[in-house]
């Protein structure tokens, strides 16, 4: 007893303190699955409360009786969406994402989530906090949440592909060069080693010239024409794409073909334009819908969110 208590205290001492910023940083990993953007950026997070000992805000069913407070903090996160009609499926994904990511933080023992101002707030809050599966919270569900998530992720991948391929076209790469690229060719094989859910924090650190010295972290170098030439391409759009391609199981090995049709097939040179146009439509859809959601969010809560271009 005394020993385990000591161990718990030692663990607690090693843990970084759980504060609002730590939670918010972690929540940055949760995205609006339709817009493929962080819920933090989109200003969906309404409140964060951290109560190491106080369980009054928590679900009072005594389910964690027997757990010691030394186990960690209890965190409460409240969030809201642009409309009360936002798909309950999407809302569920965000609510479970908030719960699970928060609980991944060292020092957090339990997270409770509350969605407000939504048509299905009660079902979602009760279900997510009781850790029920979606199908139990919504009995008339006919399609699993995973399938919906996958189909949204495929869309997100395609939109990201558009931006990545545009970057390659911008530096003068030709379709026949682009369709045969692999993660290894673009110098991003290391992202594969990190596996699914790798954070694309990409881009942000890359502008600063830290200890990397001469190494240009903002760009990747791609060999073309059998290594006779090299081109430099901004790393961010390529890396952002690769993370989603890993998430959607399109990429598993450094030599896989980097880009794909909407159905996940390799792209033939003849189909390059068509596929790129379809990817462009996915990108326009995402950006356009982002504009609709931002307008609604603004009308509802007076919050304005940075949007790409406009």
């Amino acid at each position: 007893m005394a020993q385990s208590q000591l161990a718990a205290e030692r663990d607690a001492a090693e843990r970084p303190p759980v504060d609002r910023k730590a939670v918010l940083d972690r929540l940055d990993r949760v995205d609006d699955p339709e817009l493929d953007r962080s819920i933090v950026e989109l200003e969906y997070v309404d409140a964060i409360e951290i109560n190491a000992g106080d369980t009054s805000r928590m679900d009072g069913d005594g389910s964690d009786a027997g757990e010691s407070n030394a186990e960690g903090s209890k965190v409460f996160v409240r969030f809201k969406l642009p409309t009360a009609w936002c798909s309950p499926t999407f809302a569920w994904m965000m609510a479970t994402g908030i719960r699970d990511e928060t609980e991944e933080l060292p020092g957090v023992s339990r997270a409770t989530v509350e969605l407000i101002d939504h048509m299905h707030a009660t079902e979602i809050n009760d279900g997510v906090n009781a850790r029920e599966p979606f199908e139990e919270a919504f009995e008339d569900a006919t399609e699993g949440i995973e399938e919906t998530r996958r189909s949204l992720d495929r869309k997100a991948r395609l939109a990201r592909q558009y931006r990545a391929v545009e970057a390659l076209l911008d530096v003068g790469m030709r379709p026949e060069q682009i369709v045969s690229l692999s993660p290894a060719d673009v110098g991003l094989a290391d992202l594969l080693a990190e596996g699914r859910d790798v954070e694309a924090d990409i881009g942000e650190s890359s502008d600063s010239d830290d200890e990397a010295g001469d190494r240009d972290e903002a760009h990747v170098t791609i060999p073309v024409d059998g290594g006779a030439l090299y081109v430099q391409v901004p790393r961010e759009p390529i890396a952002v794409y690769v993370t989603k391609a890993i998430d959607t199981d399109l990429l598993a090995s450094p030599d896989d073909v980097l880009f794909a049709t909407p159905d996940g097939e390799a792209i033939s040179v003849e189909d390059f334009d068509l596929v790129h146009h379809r990817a462009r439509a996915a990108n326009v859809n995402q950006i356009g819908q982002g504009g609709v959601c931002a307008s609604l969010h603004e009308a509802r809560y007076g919050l304005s969110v940075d949007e790409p271009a406009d």
Partner: protein
Amino acid sequence: MYRHDGEDVFVIDNHIHLWDASEENVIHEGGEQFIQCFYDYHTGFTPEDRQWDLETYRDYGPDKLMNDVFRDGYVDMGIFQPTYLSEFYEDGFNTTEDNAELAEKYPERFVLNGSFDPRDGEEGLEYLRELKERYDIPGVKLYTAEWKGDSKGWRLDSEESFEFLQECVNLGITNINAHKGPTIRPLNRDAFDVADVDDAATSFPELNFIVNHVGMPRLDDFTWIAAQEPNVYGGLAVVAPLALSRPRKFGEIIGELLFWLGEDRILYGSDYGLWEPEWVIEAVMDLELTDEQEKEYGMEFDLEKKRKIMGENAAELYGIDIEEKKRQFEFDEVSERFDLGEAYTSEAAAD
């Protein structure tokens, strides 16, 4: 009639409503949430000085519609798109019968569509025949996400739906307007799925499928389907207001539509009373693609395209003779009431 750089543009608003969301008519929480959601759309896109208060918004009535749409809104003809939502509203939200109040009073100015719900079975088919008989409806507006009993929606490509679509063919009801956009359910499928349009359009080549809200937020699925189905059209309701607040995004969306569907299969709609047509039409007519967009899509959003989208494409679908209408509108009741006759005369004189 809209005047653009000295040229007349005949406007057929492909998407208008006369709804009743007054508190007395709301009988389900869903009905209240529905109008609140609409109101968020209203305030989210409407310039501040043009916003309505919620009371007006709930039930604006026929006079305000006439003023906003015809007197102030440049619109020459309006197409009613009923939305029943009978589980949410005692007397329905915006039924064919509600819309008929004005459509029968000014038949030269309105096109009156009906509606069906395949879950109504034989009774529903009978109602569809009745609508045809009574109002000679040229089309239907379908709301596949509507709740009914335990059902939270239906699909256009279901067996039951095909029975109704076949009945439309039999009755000569040719324009099938599907709401594919901002919606409430179905719950677990991606709520804005447009995939069911594909099968229906292939199976009924004699019908036209107008996908309202161009499938947003599934524009990419919609454009891909529409590119392959020549009888699929895109309705701009809800997208059009972006022309004012987010012109660049609107430019990209219109660019995609022009790229995949071409200029003959896009229809303007205000979605009145979601928004007043006046500022929406001004914004769309004033919009030009950026240089970058013109390069990307290989075209300009020029007057000829705008003319088609604003009226000529709808005229084609509904068999409206624009020149004949102009002559008629020189002296019709609406022109007299709002002193609009001259707009049609001047065009005649210019010819």
